[in-house]
């Protein structure tokens, strides 16, 4: 029986000595997947959304609206109200009123039951939410469908159960809610971040004013509809859309007891500055530049999956993305070759196609930032490899990219790129791996790949990171605390630890 040999392809861009010589895999067209678009026909969106204040949709006082666009097509989807200081004032007043008159007085179990209702309604409308999330933010439908939306529901479900059990969370101490929480969330996991913020706040007895990111407001507004349908008392959750100025108005409002922020370290510092000396509570979930450390004894093929998932999940728009790959020197070439093969199978394109692995970059602005940092990487002398994935002509897309030959001092090894760009560095010994991993002002997450149990646990304690994934990556669960060390922020979200930011412990 004749065995067909694949012809050698063109030379790769690599100047590395590829141990594998001319042998290469061909991820071509022998059997192609047909388009498999998720149809948006069941989605009900309005042309224009107001602000959700005191249980009602209201127009912004300024009368101003802005467009939210689909980053995969650059077409506008809907018009969104631009909340002003006056609108924030209304929202905070509604939240305060709801806190004083209803929410703080409600029996805890009843409070929990409202949160359970929200969880259930999210599950019912899962498909619609997933489609809108992908349309508005650009993430692949398989992620919004299998990760964002189910995990959103899980967060409400988990926290709902805490409402009547808070006295067990802090044994020996009495706890009470803070009052009104101002919450500002980013565009990378729009609905999920809303859940991370709203669910524990409500379960602990607070009322909230939430400001979604200006490029991805839609699912938060659908959540407002769900909250209305769940008959949550008016004012308990208020959603004020807008950009930076709207967020600033919320931060600076004197009647807000706490600010919870997820976003960049730069903006986090601005908020911390604005609140200096005020005594207001804060939680900050900021940027990251996580090390994903691979030892020679690792389950390599699974490590490759972990690396790919670590950096290309959600186009790399992930604060805990494994954006610095630290590889034990002896396996560098093999691992990089494996990564390139794996990258060749990534499917970049229409976020609504069920087979898309990497969707659209969230905004033109972010795309430009990624392009700029990648340029800096090239200028600094790192070697770039970009996967040969065809990109759509319209929309904001960026091919999966890795840099090898990266030095610890390169900007691409230090700055958060927040895109599908991986920097590969090497180490020789375990202690060097730890030193390099910790050699950053960030400290959100880290990954370790090794077959040695003792090493995993030792490194897990030595890495300065709020989340350590050993032989896995990018795992999240409402029962698990998440948050940063160092300039990646403070405070935790998820688990019992995630309640503390929304309670006063007497």
């Amino acid at each position, binding site marked *: 029986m004749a065995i067909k040999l694949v012809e050698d392809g063109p030379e790769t861009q690599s100047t590395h000595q590829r141990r594998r010589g001319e042998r290469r895999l061909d991820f071509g067209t022998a059997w192609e997947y047909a388009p498999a678009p998720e149809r948006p026909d069941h989605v009900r969106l309005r042309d224009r959304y107001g602000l959700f204040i005191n249980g009602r949709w209201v127009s912004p006082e300024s009368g101003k609206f802005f467009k939210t666009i689909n980053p995969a097509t650059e077409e506008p989807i809907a018009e969104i109200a631009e909340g002003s200081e006056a609108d924030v004032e209304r929202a905070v007043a509604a939240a305060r009123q709801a806190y004083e008159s209803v929410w703080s007085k409600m029996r805890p179990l009843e409070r929990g039951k409202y949160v359970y209702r929200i969880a259930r309604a999210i599950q019912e409308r899962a498909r619609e939410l997933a489609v809108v999330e992908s349309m508005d933010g650009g993430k692949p439908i398989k992620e919004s469908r299998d990760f964002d939306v189910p995990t959103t529901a899980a967060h409400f479900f988990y926290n709902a159960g805490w409402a009547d059990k808070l006295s067990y969370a802090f044994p*020996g101490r009495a706890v009470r809610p803070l009052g009104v929480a101002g919450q500002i969330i980013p565009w990378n996991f729009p609905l999920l971040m809303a859940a991370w913020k709203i669910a524990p706040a409500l379960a602990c007895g607070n009322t909230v004013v939430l400001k979604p990111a200006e490029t991805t407001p839609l699912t938060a507004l659908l959540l407002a509809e769900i909250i209305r349908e769940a008959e949550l008392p008016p004012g308990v959750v208020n959603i004020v859309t807008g950009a930076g100025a709207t967020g600033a108005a919320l931060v600076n409002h004197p009647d807000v007891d706490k600010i919870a922020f997820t976003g960049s370290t730069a903006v986090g510092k601005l908020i911390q500055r604005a609140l*200096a000396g005020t005594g207001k509570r804060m939680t900050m979930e900021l940027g990251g530049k996580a090390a994903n450390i691979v030892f020679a004894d690792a389950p390599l093929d699974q490590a490759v999956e972990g690396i790919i998932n670590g950096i290309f999940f959600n186009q790399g728009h992930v604060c805990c993305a494994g954006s610095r790959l630290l590889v034990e020197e002896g396996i560098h070439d093999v691992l990089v070759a494996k990564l390139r093969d794996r990258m060749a199978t990534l499917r970049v394109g229409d976020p609504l196609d069920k087979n898309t692995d990497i969707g659209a970059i969230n905004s033109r602005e972010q795309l430009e930032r990624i392009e700029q940092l990648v340029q800096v990487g090239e200028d600094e002398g790192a070697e770039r490899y970009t996967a040969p994935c065809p990109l759509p002509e319209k929309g904001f897309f960026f091919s999966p990219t890795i840099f090898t030959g990266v030095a610890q001092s390169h900007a691409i090894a230090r700055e958060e790129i927040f895109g599908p760009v991986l920097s590969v560095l090497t180490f020789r010994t375990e202690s060097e791996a730890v030193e390099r991993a910790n050699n950053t002002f960030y400290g959100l997450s880290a990954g370790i790949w090794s077959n040695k149990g003792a090493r995993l646990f030792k490194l897990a304690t030595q890495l300065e990171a709020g989340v*350590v994934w050993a032989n896995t990556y990018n*795992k999240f*669960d409402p029962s698990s*605390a998440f948050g940063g060390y160092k300039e990646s922020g*403070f405070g935790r979200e998820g688990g019992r630890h995630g309640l503390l930011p929304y309670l006063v*412990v007497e």
Partner: protein
Amino acid sequence: MAEKRKKNSDRRRPGADYVETVDAPDPVGRLSVKKTWKLYIGGAFVRSESGRYLQTADKQDNYARASRKDVRDAVKAAVAAQPGWAGRTAYNRGQILYRLAEVLEGRRDELIASLTLGGASDAAAEVDATIDRAVSYAGWTDKVHALLGTHNPVSGPHFGFSIPEPVGVVACVAPDRPALLGLVGAICPIIATGNTLVVLASELDPRTALVLAESLATSDVPGGVVNILTGSRDELAEHMAKHQGVRALDLWNIDGEAAKQLELLATENVKRVTRRLQPAEAWYDADECTSLTWLSSFLEIKTVWHPMGA
């Protein structure tokens, strides 16, 4: 005999031989040796690099007036000591804190004498409470994890847990009063869990802080774990607040514009700031001052995931 011992103890007492007007020396008596009160950095007693000094309010002693660069040196020592201190077992840290209590008990008289001279109202009671505070925290070191750690029942084939870890190097501005109890009460929750610190002592009674430093130096607390500076809060606190190697700030009885300025500086590297206003008598409320929340202010929570299989 009893009288003689008393006299010896008086001589040992800091500054006891200093008086405003110098009488003619007793030609057959003995001249006592005076001590220079120095900063405690990295386990060593050092003069301020600036060469400056201040005089205690009782005018009995001179003590070093720390400078910006002393803050730098102290943080450097704390940074160097931190991994080793955090790397010790919780049991061992508990033993060391208990040893500190033992050493304090042994220096009881000296501490009472210094506090009294420094203006404390009931020095004996303060020393007693201080020793007990150290004992209480000695017991906390290996209990925190059971209370703050969690096993996370994640919905997937993974084993997950969240554990408390030290935040790193903490800078602390101690309260003026009680000078000793407030200092030890602020230090203990920070170091019990594996942090190291730089602490700026009471301005009203800095000498007692340095007596404590001598106790620390002769206890088993490794050098660099606790670094004690004396000097001006107005001058030094800002350098502590903006030092990039400091991960958390613990401010006692600072309010208003001063607090705002320090918190602004703290944002430079996203420091965790704990700021509390507490009247002197509140430090005697042992239940409150040894509560778990005091420890948790200087802890990070780390979540670890590992595959397990369904």
